[in-house]
């Protein structure tokens, strides 16, 4: 394979083009995945803010019924895995899953251990750092955002219920969104990109191979046959044609040389000399 002209010409080009296209595909997919992940995190953060703003008035009024109704309605939205509000001690006060109510949050669960891995839990997180991606109990990938509910002057001054002014955080809102549709979209993008990459590779490598075979290797084989015919003095009577320009010069020279050899041989035959035996 490596001894033939075709192998020598096509192997490095094939490796280089295939490798470069694959690297481009991998980098492009990674970039798309990052953008999609960042957008989904922004969407989850916006949803958490929306829930907090929608429930703020009910919290101020300590209206448990409106609070649970709002949370329940938002929780019924497609793709929402869970919404829960737990107090500072980690007891779940409101949840879209009733069986979780009044239970202690499992700090060793995959979504919680990220902040609770150390002796002291992480208390200050940036907007993007509040977002966690983990697999839930059913093995489905979930994006979750935890937003602290801060104590505001309206809360500590309200007559209805008591929150000391010194208490910084009243509780935590935890929202989990399913990443199934997102992963399905990414898989679809990936499959399309794989198909496009394969088609580009096939067109590029196949196109280069076809052109080289048609324009270089086949004329070379024809020239090689012509040389063999010249060696055995079986060249056709008409000059060779249909060669690319560079090979045409060689073919014409070969033909002319053969013609000169023929006429020299004829002359020698008439004068009784033999050209084939060395002098």
């Amino acid at each position: 394979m490596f001894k033939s002209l075709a192998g020598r010409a096509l192997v490095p080009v094939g490796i280089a083009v295939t490798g470069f296209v694959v690297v481009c595909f991998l980098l492009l997919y990674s970039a798309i995945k990052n953008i999609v992940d960042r957008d989904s995190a922004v969407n989850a953060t916006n949803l958490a803010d929306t829930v907090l703003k929608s429930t703020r008035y009910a919290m101020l009024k300590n209206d448990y019924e409106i609070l649970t109704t709002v949370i329940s309605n938002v929780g019924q939205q497609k793709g929402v895995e869970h919404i829960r509000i737990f107090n500072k001690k980690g007891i779940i006060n409101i949840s879209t899953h009733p069986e979780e109510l009044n239970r202690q949050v499992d700090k060793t669960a995959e979504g919680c251990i990220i902040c609770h891995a150390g002796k002291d839990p992480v208390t200050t997180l940036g907007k993007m750092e509040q977002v966690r991606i983990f697999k839930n109990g059913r093995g489905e990938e979930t994006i979750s955002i935890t937003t602290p509910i801060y104590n505001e002057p309206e809360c500590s001054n309200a007559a209805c219920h008591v929150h000391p002014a010194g208490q910084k955080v009243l509780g935590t809102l935890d929202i989990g969104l399913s990443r199934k549709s997102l992963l399905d979209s990414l898989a679809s993008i990936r499959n399309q990109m794989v198909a496009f990459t394969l088609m580009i590779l096939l067109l590029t490598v196949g196109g280069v191979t076809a052109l080289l075979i048609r324009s270089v290797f086949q004329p070379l084989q024809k020239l090689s046959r012509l040389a063999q015919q010249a060696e055995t003095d079986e060249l056709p009577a008409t000059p060779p044609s249909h060669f690319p320009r560079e090979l045409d010069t060689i073919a014409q020279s070969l033909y002319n040389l053969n013609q000169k050899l023929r006429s020299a041989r004829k002359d020698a035959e008439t004068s009784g000399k033999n050209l084939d035996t060395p002098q």
Partner: protein
Amino acid sequence: MTETSDKQPAPGAGTGPSQRDNLLEELRSDIKRLTTLSNRGLWAMSLFALVSMMAWRDFPLLPLPDSVTAALGAPPSPSMISLVLLLYTFSAIILSLSRMMAGIEHKSSFCHVGYLTGFFLFYHFAKALHDNYWAVFGAGITILSVESYRIWSYCREALVRKNEQLEFAKKHGRLPPEEQ
């Protein structure tokens, strides 16, 4: 033609036995050097495979990214590293193909392993190695394959030529006329 050359010494012929031995020794050492050089690409590939295995395990022997970034400052963004990786892959392939075309002997395989290790480390410290591991691995395999092929084909051609020269030198005590 050969017989004529033997009877009429060409330039460089008529050398003494010590010069003949020196020439043979020189050719043999060239053949040995080229044989060793032809495997250089495979050694570089093996070293890259070793580095890739370490990268796959998140460089267990290195300090954690947080401690390194605390000491050295924030790493470049993953998108910036990806852009540089793309440019580097493109340039390295073009350079290798150009050297192949010009028939230049250049032993550059191991420096590529160094550059690729650098990309692994940058992604590691930017905490983006998981997403970009296969891109660096693919770039490495491509560049090192093209480089290995270039070095191997160069050495193969040179070895054929040197062996012919050696055979000629053994018979005639000098290099073929076209090599002089």
